[in-house]
């Protein structure tokens, strides 16, 4: 049976979204994306290097006709900067599905939720479909849903930290109360972290550093793909109940 993942009425079969930053080169980026099976990749908006225009372009390696580009606002610390970035991204070629992140602190890269909620509200009114990086606070994610976010993307732990899910209870609470898709974004360190996110019932996972900084990024991309599928299937299958004591797996009758 097909397990379709829908964001803003658009259907995807992979529940893994990958970032395209921190790779050695675009060739490695493209190989890792391919191995991950991801259908959506995040991209950043930056100035063109006027002095060195012969540099290769991301678009030459990952064709936006075949893979969904999700422009992000990484590096933005105010609502104004984030809005400017996403309006430019939209102008580049009609991108309406975007990832909003408004940061509050350089050391932790923790989201500034006041600016984030304000920005989401404005972007939704302008017709954007906004996937929002946010804290793992159920009250904040509820606010984001109320102002029309297309996906709620709570952090597992700080961006690039690889510490995995620090607050499983909150992620579970957020998933249970949300009508919009919940995607764990930031902090996934290894395949088992992605599996846990999916076992908690989340709709998807967004990973960049854990793949890009692995010793073998392409192999880790494949591991993440399988981890997300394993976690999803495990969630849908419904795990057994935990017991305090052992329960023998072989029949106790007719022992020789």
């Amino acid at each position, binding site marked *: 049976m097909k397990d379709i993942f829908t964001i803003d009425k658009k259907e995807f079969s992979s529940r893994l979204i990958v*970032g*395209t*930053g*921190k*790779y050695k080169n*675009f060739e490695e*980026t493209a190989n890792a994306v391919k191995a991950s099976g991801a259908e959506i990749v*995040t*991209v*950043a*908006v*930056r*100035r*063109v290097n*006027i002095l060195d*225009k012969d540099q290769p*372009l*991301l*678009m030459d390696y990952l064709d936006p006709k075949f893979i969904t*580009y999700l*422009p*992000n606002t*990484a590096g933005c610390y105010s609502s104004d900067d984030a809005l*400017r970035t996403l*309006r*430019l*991204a939209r*102008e*580049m*070629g009609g991108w309406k599905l975007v990832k909003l992140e408004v940061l509050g602190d350089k050391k932790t890269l923790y989201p500034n939720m006041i600016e984030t909620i304000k920005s989401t509200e404005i972007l939704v009114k302008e017709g954007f479909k906004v996937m929002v990086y946010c804290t793992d606070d159920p009250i904040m994610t509820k606010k984001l849903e109320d102002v029309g976010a297309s996906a709620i993307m709570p952090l597992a732990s700080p*961006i*690039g930290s690889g510490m995995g899910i620090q607050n499983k209870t909150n992620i579970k609470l957020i998933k249970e109360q949300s009508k919009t898709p919940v995607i764990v974004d930031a902090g996934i360190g290894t395949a088992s972290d992605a599996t846990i996110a999916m076992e908690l019932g989340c709709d998807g996972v*967004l990973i*960049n*550093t854990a793949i890009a900084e692995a010793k073998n990024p392409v192999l880790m991309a494949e591991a993440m793909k399988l981890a997300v599928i394993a976690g999803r299937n495990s969630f849908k299958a419904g795990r057994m109940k935990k017991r305090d004591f052992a329960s023998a797996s072989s029949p106790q009758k007719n022992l020789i």
Partner: protein
Amino acid sequence: MQMNNSNEAKIQLNGDPYQINSGINLIQLLNKLKIQKNKVAIEVNGEIVEKKKYPSLILFKDDKVEIVHFIGGG
């Protein structure tokens, strides 16, 4: 708008001074830079310029031009 006598003007391009022929439009600037318009977005003096307006947007001295594109990011 006053034309520069030497017919040259300095604009701010992506934060750095850049010499152009005064009065060129955005298409001409992109051609000069060898940049394909479908891969970028442009802001002039803080305002995003729609692609269809590139031929009619004329650049003058001290204009602030930002040309952006997509790069790898998380």
